[in-house]
């Protein structure tokens, strides 16, 4: 269970007029309980949806309020939260650290699997599950964008997190890889929270959060939530009038 309790994120921002820096609110206050297995977060660029995602595994800490995952507070129990919550980024290049796929997945296991041979075996198994075993020893630069995103996903899943947060995992992918990654995410046992611009993918979630200007403006089943989002994006008067 993910709980956000009046969570707020603020940041210092330069004054365009040249005055002193001021504090601006990037997100919140947000109060949510997320227990569904498939949750989508949609919103315009810069709306705060990535900040919301980053709150969930402690990459961003709340300036006020609290964020808890299975009772663990992201401020007090940051390391424990990160062990429970895996995070996949939009650009896998930023996430892949080691020269080859096998070594990168093995890196994820260094903290939890002390034996090197077992680490390698588990990394191989993780690559086999996503169909990259034959590419285990090639340079990650020789993988296609879709393969790199799959690898980034495998590197996170190898640690067996209870929750997976994905920040636009398919934005850089073509339709074939997008379908493949979506299918893989759908097949996972973990609770999955996906930030996405892909409304088809969002429609398959159990619950959709719509973020606009740092606020969760809709929190509903996909049908009504996405209708609200579409209205927001097209500037419909109904959307502006809605609570």
């Amino acid at each position, binding site marked *: 269970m993910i709980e956000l309790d009046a969570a707020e994120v603020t940041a210092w921002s330069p004054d365009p007029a040249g005055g002193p820096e001021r504090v601006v609110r990037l997100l919140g206050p947000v109060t949510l309980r997320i227990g569904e297995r498939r949750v989508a977060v949609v919103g315009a660029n810069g709306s705060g949806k990535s900040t919301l995602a*980053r709150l969930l595994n402690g990459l961003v800490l709340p300036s006020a309020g609290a964020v808890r995952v299975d009772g663990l507070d992201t401020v007090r129990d940051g390391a424990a939260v990160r062990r429970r919550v895996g995070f996949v980024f939009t650009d896998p290049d930023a996430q892949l*650290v080691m*020269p080859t796929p096998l*070594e990168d997945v*093995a890196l994820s296991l*260094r903290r939890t699997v002390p034996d090197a041979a077992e680490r390698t075996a588990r990394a191989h198994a993780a690559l086999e599950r996503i169909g990259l075993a034959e590419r285990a020893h090639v340079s990650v*630069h020789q993988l296609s964008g879709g393969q790199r995103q799959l690898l980034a996903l495998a590197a996170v899943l190898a*640690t067996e997190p209870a929750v997976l947060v994905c920040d636009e995992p398919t934005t850089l992918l073509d339709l074939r890889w997008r379908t493949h990654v979506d299918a893989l995410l759908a097949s996972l046992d973990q609770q999955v929270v996906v930030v996405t611009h892909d409304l088809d993918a969002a429609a398959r979630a159990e619950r959709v959060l719509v973020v606009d200007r740092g606020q969760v403006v809709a929190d509903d089943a996909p049908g009504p939530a996405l209708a609200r989002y579409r209205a927001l994006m097209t500037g419909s008067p109904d959307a502006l009038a809605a609570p």
Partner: protein
Amino acid sequence: MSPVGRRGGTAPGRPLRAPWAGPLGLHHPGSSVLHRAPAGLKLVALAGLGVVLVVLRGPATAALALVAVGGLAALARLPWRRTSRGLLPVVLAAAVLAGYQTWARGWAVGVETALDVLTLVLAGTLVTATTRADDLLATVARAARPLRRVGLPPETVALAVGLFLRTVPVVVRVVGESRDAARARGLERDPRATVVPATVRMVAHARTTGDALAARGLAD
């Protein structure tokens, strides 16, 4: 990219090549004696080779060292095509260095300098090609244990080494893409059009990589 794109130095009308990724860092699985040797021993030998090349002077010694390291590369069955392609820019840089040193200090120093550079890069390639990154990190982490006393976690030091191996090809790719973007805008003669966006992108990449390491719990 267009069919006649020049990424990787391909000439018009010829097949494209993957971007140059440098010779260092890519493990080549095998069962040679070098593959079986402990990572720590290989790193110490690499450092020792560096000292030897500095202490022993003359082009003959440098040539002998290059032949010896080349022999070890053959023993380890490094893939010739991939290794030579990775080393090609290093050969060019060594040739430029040799030219300068020959002009400044004579041909013997010029040849020796170029051969020393090639020998050390080939030796580094040999170490990373015959050592799994996992073993390399474990060895570096063990060696860095004393740094814990000054507040530096050994695992973080080891991770920095891994990041270094990974970052070289990333820099090459980012600079290549920035150069292509400058060319697309007709700014190929203005170095700022390549250097500024490449620098900004590398800083952004470093920040995102830091976030990704934190998200994977590797910085805890």
